[in-house]
Each structure stands twice: as structure tokens, then as C-alpha cells.
């Protein structure tokens, strides 16, 4: 019996090639696409899940103010020590400091710049990072120990054993390799290649010992809590400890927030969704893609099942009962589904490398992966349930005497259910088109927004030895061909990571005692070179007096409430100084963050570590060449690693840009799938109307009239879909845009363009088929019935 089911299933597939192909392409593409999406979602959801004690590890963030609107994810160094000692809920604590500048390491003739990270020695017991060689309980033997990851070990020592080897750094110190760790997995938020003992940071600090320096919030602290401990309570108690050790008005409403390590990647410190939104969007898109494919399948099968009524009746007449027919139809669906799975698997394997590239991940597709089969299983149940069982039941139920005459209850040509499905499908597509447009616009908005300074044709690099004789070198750089301006700052102006509460002015209200201001030490020509606009004051003068001059931004002015700020005296880090200008607000953090108060000041001792060179598009290469030549003179040991600000900027939004691209890709797939379904349905309608068309043509109907006959119904459905899709899309995209503080508006034209696009695509699909039917020879079409 089964063999017979298979035989007739395969015959049917072969006989109706077009429908089989439409169904199989639709299903396999959608299966492949949704599995790719789910792999992405899975990867995101599994970020930082590799730690066996992960559910008890928390990162500590400090927050100020009752609204907790100012949060920073660093703490002072003693917090970990005091917390662990005093709070029984804390089992262990690990501090990490990412050292932002490069260190030059030398082994024999190999020299490389590396970013080092200082960590407490319990990093391998608190976290589950794998130490391949060395003692995980005591990875550093002393303060001149170093741990490398496999990649670095290979880079320096090739195939030689690395343990015990000495790496030299610039100041003459040498570090002994005491451990080799596995490269940190790509779905870990913590990404370090080279570890040094945290205690190094405590060296030479007799006057201000590290472990009693409560004011310097420069270290990440991870706490391992005991099972059942409440992170909120621990956070509050940590704040109590802090205030006891550093009684200052500034910290009066300091609070520590313990963020679960496993949520670090997708949520912010306060638990608001960050990456999670994207995860949800992608999950939704995967669902929509599957939905569309299922709808296609159900529509085509039910539409065609009315055509098969005769076959089914005949089978009934010669003795088939309900269950025979039921299983026959189910077998057909299963055959299609199996073929689709095979093709989907092939597609996934083919596109996996490309997809990893596009998404910047290292996802692995495996047939031994339970979740892949879970997804296959779910789709199969939906497909077989809706598309197999529904028509199977319909077809096996009807009265064969009527069916032989072509009268079918419920499966007639004007099936309401099928129309509903088409509307759902097209609404999804239109929503996707609108979303694509708005997401694209937002990304463009960000990238073209006025940052308040120029990022075009400016490149930056770390100063290294250039800091030593900065003034002279600046002038020399200035003279190089292609260089239009040279300036420096302590940090990247695009992602400023330094702030302080040490900012006071006369009449500072008591409730502003914990006012925090971002700080950037710059060369005096910085505003001018970077095209920043002063809205008040003349700025730095270029004289020695500048060391006591400050420029604040508009937001700082607004928040402090200073009147006539220029000429006012303020104290900054306990040094009095004068405000000499107010700079127009500029974006020194990403667009998801509202602009905060900021102060610009001149102090070379803050480390003018980043050099900015302005050039022009045409002269960029010349400028680069000449700067590099100079670099080699002063920084022979270091690679010349420059970066154009445009690129750094794009890098900041890399994950947004990537998600945007992925979204576009998958939205297009969904839209194409809907069209494929529509195409199938229209082809089918045209086919069932062959006789009608033939008769009408013999009676004198024109081609246009016939196209209208076939198309009008479908195009009307597409029209109804607009009404469903527009409000839905508007609502969804408004929510999405809320993610961004600085965002584009949803313009009416987006809807018009999306509507037109959907309509034109649908019209081409529908009318193309209709035209073909209308142009066919009426004699032929009449004979075919």
C-alpha cells in the first residue's frame, strides 16, 4: 500500500512539474533561510553561556542618582577585595583591566604590538576559560608572568613549547610564559589574547595604594555569588562598603548594579533589551518566512485539490475509503517535504561560509544538532498538518457523486480561507518592505548625521613616541604634503570613555553634587582642525594661560544652568580655571546614547595618545605616505596602524550594519517567496479558467478584458493587505526606532514606495501569467477540457 502511495505521489509530482517546483523551491528556501536565522539567534542567545558557574557570575556596574541614568560598567579596584571579605554572599571576585594602549613584545627577532589585559589570578577558576598548559589555580607564578592564547603562542614561538619562554617588553622587563589558554570562544563577550597579573597595577603606588584607591573607576569587577544570593542586596551592600571607605557627598546615592554575565550581551546593565531586540526581530523574520512558505504550500495544494476531485472520486468509487485518501495525500506532502529538507540542507551547507562572513560569526551547521531537527520537525508538523491533513480531510469527505461533476463543498474556486492566507502573506511582505526601507534609512541617517565634528578624510593613530616631543612633531607633521591639519587628544572623540565628578562651580546646587562630566584633554587647535563650532566664546588662545582654560559643550551648559558662562571660573580636578568657550553639542558616544555634558581642556600629561591628521580625499595617500615616513623615524619599533575616522565610525555600528544587511537579505527572501506563492496561485487560476477564457475569446473578449478577469481578484487581495500592513508596520517600526535616541522619521513616502513596490511585484507576477493565458489559442484551450 505504502509503495502505491509513493508511486502515485511521485507520479503526481512529476506530472505537475511547475507546482512541484514552486512548492519545493519555496519550502527548501524558507527552511534554509529560517535555519540560518535560527542559528544566528541561537548564537546570540548562547553568548557567554560557556561558563559552568555562569548563572552565578555578575559584572558590577556603578550607578548614580535615583534614576540610575548614569551608569558605568567599571568599578574601583578595592571593591572586589572588600566585597569578598565582608559579604558572605560573595564567593569570589575577579578584576579585569583592559589596557587600552599597545605594548611592544619582543622574542628574539619577533616584535609585535599587543593589547594586554590585567586580570586577577582566579580568572580560570571563576570563569570556565580553558587553560591548555599551566596551573589554572595559580596561573601566574609572580608579577612577571604572562599567559598567551594559542594564536599568540604560535605567533611568537611557532611549534616550540611556549611555557617558560621569556617575552621582553619595551621598558626592559621580561615576562615568563606560565600558561597557554585556548583562544576565547567567539561568542564570549570577554575577548582577551594576552593576560598579565592584575597585581602589576599595584606596583609603584606607595603614595596611593591600588587597593585603597576607591575613586578610580577603571576596572571591571566580576563577582561570583553563592547559590541563592540576591544580586540586588549584594549591590546595595557593596555601595554601603564603598561609602564607608570613601565618605563623600559625591557618592551619597551611589549604587552598585550586578548584571548577570549571561545577560551582558543582549541586555544593558539595567536589564533593558539591547541586542535582544534584534534577536526577537530575527526570530520573527524566521517565523514569517516559514509562515509564508507554509501558506504557499497550503494554498497551492488546496487550490489544486479541487482539480483532483475527479481522481479522488474515482478512487472512492473503486473502493478507497477516507483513510486511504488521507494517507495518500499525506504521503504526497511528505515526499515534497523530504525533498525540500534535502535541498535545504544542501543550501545551508553551500551558503554557510558566506553567511558567517556576512554576520561576522562562526556558526556551525551540523546535522547532529537537535535544534535543527526540532525546526524541521515543527515545520513538518505545520506543513503536514495544514497542507496535508486539511486537504486530505476535505477531499476524503466529499460526496463522490457530486465530485465527479466537479462540485466541491469548501474547496471551490472562491475559497475564503485561501484569500485570507494570501492577505496574511502579502501583509507580511509589505511590512517587511517597509521595515527594510526604514531600517535602511536609519542606518543612513546615523552614518550621514552631523556629528558636530568632521570625520571625513581624517585619520588617527596611536602616538607612541610622538608624545615625547609633541609640539615639534606636530609642526613637522603639519609641513608634510597632503596634511591639512594635525591635532591630538587623550582619547577617541568618537567613543569617549572618561568622565569625572570633579567639576564644581559657584552656586552648584546641593542636588547636583554627583554631577558627572565627560572629559577630553586636547591640543588647543583640536576644535579648529576638527571643524567643531563654538556657540559662545573665543576658545583657546594659544598662550600659556590655556592650561587653565576650559571649553564646555551645550549640554553641560544647560545642565549646570550657568548664566553667561564665558569668563566664569570653575574648578576641574581641584584646579580653578576659566570657561573660554561653549562648543556646539557633538556626538562623542554612539547614536544610541543621548549627548551628555562634556569638557575639553588642555593637559598634555593626560596622555595625548591619539593623533588626528586631517587631509583631503585627493591627498589622503600622499599624507599617509609622508606621515608614515616620519613615523618610521620616531617609532621604528611599532607598526603604523592608522584608521580613517569614517571606518572607525562604521566599525562602531558594525553590528547594526550587519544586522541591517541580514535583515534586508531575509526580508527579500520572504518577499520573493510570497511572490512565488502568488505566481503559483495565479498560474493555477489561469489554468482552471482555460475553458472560460477560450469561450470568452471565441465570443470576442479582448486580451485586456481577460487579464482583468484573472488579475482583479488577486490585486484586490493585495490591496486589502496594504490596509492590514500599514498600521502594523508603522507600529513596529516606531518601536524599533525608539532604540535610537537620534533617529529618522517615518515618512509617508516610505509607505507609498513600499505599497507601490509590493503592488508592482504582485501585478507583474499576476498579469504576466494572465497575459499568457489570455494570448493562448482559444481552440486549443477549449479542446483541453
Amino acid at each position: 500500500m505504502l509503495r502505491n502511495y509513493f508511486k502515485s505521489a511521485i507520479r503526481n509530482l512529476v506530472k505537475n512539474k511547475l507546482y512541484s517546483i514552486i512548492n519545493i523551491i519555496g519550502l527548501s528556501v524558507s527552511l534554509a533561510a529560517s535555519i540560518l536565522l535560527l542559528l544566528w539567534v541561537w548564537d546570540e542567545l548562547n553568548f557567554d553561556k560557556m561558563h559552568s558557574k555562569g548563572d552565578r557570575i555578575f559584572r558590577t556596574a556603578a550607578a548614580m542618582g535615583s534614576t540610575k541614568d548614569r551608569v558605568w560598567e567599571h568599578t574601583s579596584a578595592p571593591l572586589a577585595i572588600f566585597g569578598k571579605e565582608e559579604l558572605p554572599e560573595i564567593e569570589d571576585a575577579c578584576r579585569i583591566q583592559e589596557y587600552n594602549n599597545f605594548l611592544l613584545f619582543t622574542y628574539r627577532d619577533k616584535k609585535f604590538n599587543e593589547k594586554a589585559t590585567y586580570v586577577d589570578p582566579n580568572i580560570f577558576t571563576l570563569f570556565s576559560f580553558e587553560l591548555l598548559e599551566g596551573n589554572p589555580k595559580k596561573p601566574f607564578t609572580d608579577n612577571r608572568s604572562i599567559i598567551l592564547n594559542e594564536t599568540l603562542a604560535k605567533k611568537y614561538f611557532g611549534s616550540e613549547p611556549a611555557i617558560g619562554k621569556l617575552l621582553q617588553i619595551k621598558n626592559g622587563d621580561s615576562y615568563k610564559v606560565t600558561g597557554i589558554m585556548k583562544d576565547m570562544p567567539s561568542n564570549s563577550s570577554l575577548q582577551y589574547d594576552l593576560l598579565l597579573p592584575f597585581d602589576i597595577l599595584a606596583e609603584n603606588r606607595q603614595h596611593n595604594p591600588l587597593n585603597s584607591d576607591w575613586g578610580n573607576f577603571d576596572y571591571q569587577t566580576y563577582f561570583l555569588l553563592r547559590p541563592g544570593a540576591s544580586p540586588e542586596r549584594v549591590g546595595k551592600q557593596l555601595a554601603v562598603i564603598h561609602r564607608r571607605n570613601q565618605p563623600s557627598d559625591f557618592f551619597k546615592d551611589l549604587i552598585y548594579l550586578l548584571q548577570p554575565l549571561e545577560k551582558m550581551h543582549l541586555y544593558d546593565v539595567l536589564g533593558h533589551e539591547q541586542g535582544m531586540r534584534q534577536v526577537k526581530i530575527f526570530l520573527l523574520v524566521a517565523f514569517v518566512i516559514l509562515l509564508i512558505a507554509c501558506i504557499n504550500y497550503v494554498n497551492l495544494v488546496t487550490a489544486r485539490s479541487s482539480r483532483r476531485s475527479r481522481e479522488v472520486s474515482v478512487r472512492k468509487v473503486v473502493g478507497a475509503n477516507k483513510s486511504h485518501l488521507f494517507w495518500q495525500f499525506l504521503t504526497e506532502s511528505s515526499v515534497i517535504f523530504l525533498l525540500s529538507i534535502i535541498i535545504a540542507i544542501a543550501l545551508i551547507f553551500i551558503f554557510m561560509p558566506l553567511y558567517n562572513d556576512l554576520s561576522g560569526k562562526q556558526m556551525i551547521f551540523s546535522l547532529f544538532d537537535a535544534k535543527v531537527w526540532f525546526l524541521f520537525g515543527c515545520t513538518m508538523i505545520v506543513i503536514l498538518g495544514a497542507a496535508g491533513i486539511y486537504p486530505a480531510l476535505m477531499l476524503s469527505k466529499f460526496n463522490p457523486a457530486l465530485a465527479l461533476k466537479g462540485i466541491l463543498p469548501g474547496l471551490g474556486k472562491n475559497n475564503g480561507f485561501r484569500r485570507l492566507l494570501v492577505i496574511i502573506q502579502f501583509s507580511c511582505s509589505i511590512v517587511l518592505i517597509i521595515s527594510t526601507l526604514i531600517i535602511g534609512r536609519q542606518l543612513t541617517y546615523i552614518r550621514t548625521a552631523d556629528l558636530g565634528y568632521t570625520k571625513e578624510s581624517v585619520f588617527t593613530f596611536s602616538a607612541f613616541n610622538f608624545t615625547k616631543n609633541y609640539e615639534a612633531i606636530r609642526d613637522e607633521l603639519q609641513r608634510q604634503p597632503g596634511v591639512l591639519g594635525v591635532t591630538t587628544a587623550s582619547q577617541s572623540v568618537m567613543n569617549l570613555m572618561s568622565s569625572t565628578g570633579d567639576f564644581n562651580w559657584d552656586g552648584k546646587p546641593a542636588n547636583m553634587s554627583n554631577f558627572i562630566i565627560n572629559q577630553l584633554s586636547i591640543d588647543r587647535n583640536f576644535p579648529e582642525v576638527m571643524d567643531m563650532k563654538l556657540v559662545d566664546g573665543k576658545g583657546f588662545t594659544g598662550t600659556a594661560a590655556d592650561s587653565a582654560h576650559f571649553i564646555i559643550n551645550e549640554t553641560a551648559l544647560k545642565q549646570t544652568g550657568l548664566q553667561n558662562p564665558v569668563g566664569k571660573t570653575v574648578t576641574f580636578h581641584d584646579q580653578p580655571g576659566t570657561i573660554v568657550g561653549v562648543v556646539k553639542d557633538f556626538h562623542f558616544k554612539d547614536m544610541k546614547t543621548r549627548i551628555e555634558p562634556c569638557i575639553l581642556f588642555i593637559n598634555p600629561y593626560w596622555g595625548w595618545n591619539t593623533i588626528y591628521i586631517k587631509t583631503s580625499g585627493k591627498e589622503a595617500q600622499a599624507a599617509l605616505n609622508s606621515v608614515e615616513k616620519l613615523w618610521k623615524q620616531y617609532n621604528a619599533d611599532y607598526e603604523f596602524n592608522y584608521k580613517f575616522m569614517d571606518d572607525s565610525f562604521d566599525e562602531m555600528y558594525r553590528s547594526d550594519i550587519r544586522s541591517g544587511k541580514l535583515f534586508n537579505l531575509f526580508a527579500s527572501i520572504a518577499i520573493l517567496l510570497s511572490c512565488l506563492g502568488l505566481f503559483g496561485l495565479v498560474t493555477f487560476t489561469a489554468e482552471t479558467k482555460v475553458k472560460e477564457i477560450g469561450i470568452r475569446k471565441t465570443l470576442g473578449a479582448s486580451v485586456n478584458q481577460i487579464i482583468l478577469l484573472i488579475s482583479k481578484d488577486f490585486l484586490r487581495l493585495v490591496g486589502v493587505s496594504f490596509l492590514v500592513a500599514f498600521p502594523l508596520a508603522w507600529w513596529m517600526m516606531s518601536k524599533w526606532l525608539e532604540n535610537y535616541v537620534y533617529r529618522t522619521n517615518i515618512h509617508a513616502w516610505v509607505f507609498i514606495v513600499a505599497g507601490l513596490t509590493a503592488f508592482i511585484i504582485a501585478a507583474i507576477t499576476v498579469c504576466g501569467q494572465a497575459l499568457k493565458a489570455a494570448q493562448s489559442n482559444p481552440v486549443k484551450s477549449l479542446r483541453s477540457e
Partner: protein
Amino acid sequence: MIKITELQKYYRTEEVETVALNSLSIDVQKGEFVAVMGPSGCGKSTLLNIIGLLDDLDEGSYKFNDIEVAKFNERKRSDLRKHNIGFVFQSFNLIDELTVFENVELPLIYTKVPAAERKKRVEEVLEKVQIMHRRNHFPQQLSGGQQQRVAVARAVVNNPKLILADEPTGNLDSNNGNEVMQLLTELNDQGTTIVMVTHSEHDARYSDRIIRMLDGQVVMTTVG
């Protein structure tokens, strides 16, 4: 074998209710060959469908081999049908996707006859209707007469006790028509009961008895 009394059958559409069969009673004995005649629309096909359990009746009684089947549910009907009744239609109604052999084999599959036995029986009947040489062809590759012979073969392969034929020669020329009538007569001679709807007085002469209908009622019975 068939005893129908006071049968009523209505067709209801939104506007009108048609009385297709009106207090109709007939008897068919085992081994009889009965022809049903009458003008178009008088209810012949409706009657045949009811006899064949393809359609419900609204009122009256229908006894098949002394069992009341009027209230049978779908499963019982299909059981009764597949073991006892074969159908031949005017428009052949072969399944296009299946070969001649497979079309004829179909009833045997649904009655769970083992494969070897199926092959034997299908070949036997194909031999009988002289279409064996075309066993692997698809219906569209055959002439009308050949298709109807296949349909007859399919109707008899299960050795049904009753064959219902609705204008079996309606789509055939007289040569092909006579061949099909010949086949039916042979089957009847071997003991199969046959009820055949026809418009042709010539075909009707093959039967033992002619039932003439008008407006859903039997108006006359002539014994041939």
C-alpha cells in the same frame, strides 16, 4: 439483490428544490441485466448513484442483499462498495496519472489483495478485455473504446456481484459500443448482476428487462 421502496431524492439549491426521484420503487434480482431508460434529466444517473452508494437518499428504504443500507455511514458504504459493486461511466473516469495496469489494479489494492495475486487477476481481466498489449500505457494514449474497456476491466477485477454502468457507450461509436456491450453480456452470463443506464434502444436490447423512467418515477417495465 436490490430492493428499493418509496425512494425520495431532492436536490436543494439556494432558490429551488428539485425532486430528482419521487417515490420510486424497483427490484433487481440476482443475475439480472436491467436497462434504465428515460429522457434526459429524469433521474437515471441519480438512481444509479444511489444504488451504488455514492449518494444519499432522502426518504425510503434500500435493501442490498436483504440488508438495509439507507442509513449506512461512509465507512460501511465504502466497505460494501469495494467488495460488491463495480462502476462504468460514460466518461470512463480513468486516473490519468496511472497506467492501464495500475488503474485496473486499484480496486484490488484497496481490498488488500496481495501483490502476486493482484498481478494475476489484473492480467486475466486485461486479457479478457483484450487490452493486455497496452497494459503500460497511460489513459490519454488510448482510444475511447480502449479506455472504456479498461474501465470495464477495472469494474470487474474484484469480481463484484453488481455492475452499475451509466451510459457506458455514450461516448463511443457503434463498433466500440458493441464491443463493450458484448463484454457486459458475457459478464452477465457468468452471473454478474448489471444495471445499465442508456439512451440507446439498441443497447437496451442486450438486457433482460427495461425500466422506463419519467420525472423521477418508474413509468413502465418491459421484459425483453
